[in-house]
């Protein structure tokens, strides 16, 4: 466990200093960052899993590099992200399909945009999130704004060198590593006594509804949090 937590969930203020100015550096291969401190991957993964399992409205933000099937690596990684999402109780997937600011305004339930990520974070009261498949530059912009303005616990599953401004940052993450993280999530979930049947998150609310046989927690609007699992609670189908 980190002794001094430099990088913690915010809100950190009007314009906090970036982690790199505070002396946080990206980790070397095989290492990870937890609260701005270099640490082994296993510990970082466990802390990340704990956050996704215990904080409100855990959400995965997949970026263009997994959303678009531009090569076999991307497709494989996308599958792994879905496998991970299945194991996080009441997890949502809110995509970041591109990086440009969008006029007039994004639908915060349908997507997240790096130019104003907090619209999505705050609207959905997201307190734990995972960035995956987002180009580092844009991930860093978002991670900083999220730390400045929200209490969200940010986790970066980076394919490159990692992100100082995330609470947990893993590096060189590819499909296999995401599955490894999934296994950690399952393990920690069991330790916490949370029971959950693997299940895909609900679909994007902006899409025309074609399937009415099941209802997602989202359909409960602002009461959705009542459906969140508590420690030791048995979660059943939400309907």
């Amino acid at each position, binding site marked *: 466990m980190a002794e001094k937590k430099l990088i913690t969930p915010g809100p950190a203020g009007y314009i906090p200093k970036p982690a*790199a100015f505070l002396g946080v550096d*990206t980790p070397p291969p095989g290492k990870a960052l937890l609260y701005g401190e270099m640490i082994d991957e296993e510990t970082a993964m466990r802390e990340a899993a704990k956050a996704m399992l215990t904080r409100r409205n855990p959400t995965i933000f997949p970026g*263009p590099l997994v959303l678009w099937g531009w090569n076999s690596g991307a497709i494989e990684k996308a599958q792994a992200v879905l496998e991970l999402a299945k194991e996080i109780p009441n997890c949502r997937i809110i995509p970041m399909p591109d990086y440009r*600011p969008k006029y007039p305004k994004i639908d915060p339930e349908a997507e997240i945009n790096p*130019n104003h990520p907090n619209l999505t974070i705050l609207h959905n009261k997201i307190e734990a999130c995972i960035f995956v498949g987002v*180009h*580092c530059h844009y991930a860093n912009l978002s991670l900083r704004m999220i730390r400045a303005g929200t209490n969200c616990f940010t986790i970066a599953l980076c394919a*490159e060198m990692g992100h100082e401004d995330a609470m947990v940052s893993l590096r060189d993450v590819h499909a296999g590593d995401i599955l490894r993280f999934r296994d950690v999530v399952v393990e920690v979930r069991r330790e916490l006594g949370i029971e959950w049947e693997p299940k895909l998150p609900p679909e994007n609310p902006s899409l025309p509804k074609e399937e009415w046989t099941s209802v997602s927690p989202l359909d409960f609007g602002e009461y959705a949090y009542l459906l969140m699992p508590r420690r030791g609670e048995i979660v059943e189908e939400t309907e």
Partner: protein
Amino acid sequence: MVEQKVVEPEYLLLEAPRERKFITGSQAFAEAIKRANVDIAIAYPITPQSETMHLVGDLWAQGYVKDYYRAEEEYGAMSAIAGAVRGGARAFSATSGPGLLRGLEAIVSWPGHRIPAVLGVMTRVVNAPLSIQPDNVEIAYLLHSGLIVLHAENQQDVFDFTLAGFPISEKVDVYLPVVVATEGFFVTHAKGYVNLPPEDMKLPPRDPYKAPVPPTDCEIPPARIQRDAPVQKSNFMSYLIHAVWQQEVWSANERARKWIKHYLGGLIEVVNPEAEVFIVASGCAAAQGREAQRYAEMEGLNVGLVKVKSIRPFPKQELREVLKKAKAIIVPEHNIVGWLCKEVKAVVPDGDRVVEGPRVYGGMTLPVELIMDEIYRVLGVKKEKKTLV
């Protein structure tokens, strides 16, 4: 053209056998470009840069560089570099003094646009009145834009910094342009010994997909890509976006430290770390400082040298550490504003220790004797001199 095999930058820069050549600074730039697997070089003529870019043009004619042209003007050259790098190419350009200032709007926008490229800056008086002589005041204009700025002391540095500039620039956590500055004429047109790795080796080609931003080549998502959207207050952009963008540029600049250490052995070089008095200098002034340090040592004076290789990122910690016990810090410079002196003063405690100079400008030589005078003064050494000035 010699058949070249691709080797890792670590091998080419740090391990490959080297052969000593006696060449000019311009040739040293070209020798680096020859081994850097450069896709495109674009430049506009200006003295004293031109000779370098002539030689790079020859490299294109020989096949070492894939494309090359003489641009319409500096702003056009530097903008075209930005275009080529966005398109995924590895690019090189160079300029001097007034040309640098003419291209400056484009150049200082490279960091924000995340353009990894290498730019040679052969310093020259900034007009007016017109002069082509070396004076490095132009470096001051580069220090507040996020660029990585390396300052080469001699022909060897020119070669090493330029070749290392590409891998440093293209690191995913850096992705900023690297400026390799050196004094015009004093280095570019004078010969010095340079240890060169074999010419049948070159850096791996640029991989534009290993990057913190996608190249604009329609090969990688997202299609709806605008890497750098115009930012203004609106309900679709956070007020913070430009602020965190700038933070990202400067964070990247910070991250470059480890790569400069990795490829160039550190942001500073220290001669005689236990010295009582230090000369802190960059570029050519470091060469003069090195000479002064040698003379001082021969005279039994305890003087050291700190050569600042990287101006951005600036070696704050390193300088604080080395200069902890220094009685006086002499900062010789080739410009009137004393930009290095200001930087040094800002990072060392007890700034009164910093001697502001000696400085020469307008293309004047910085005689070692001027530095020696400061050394004698701060050490209280009385010298009877008959030299006529």
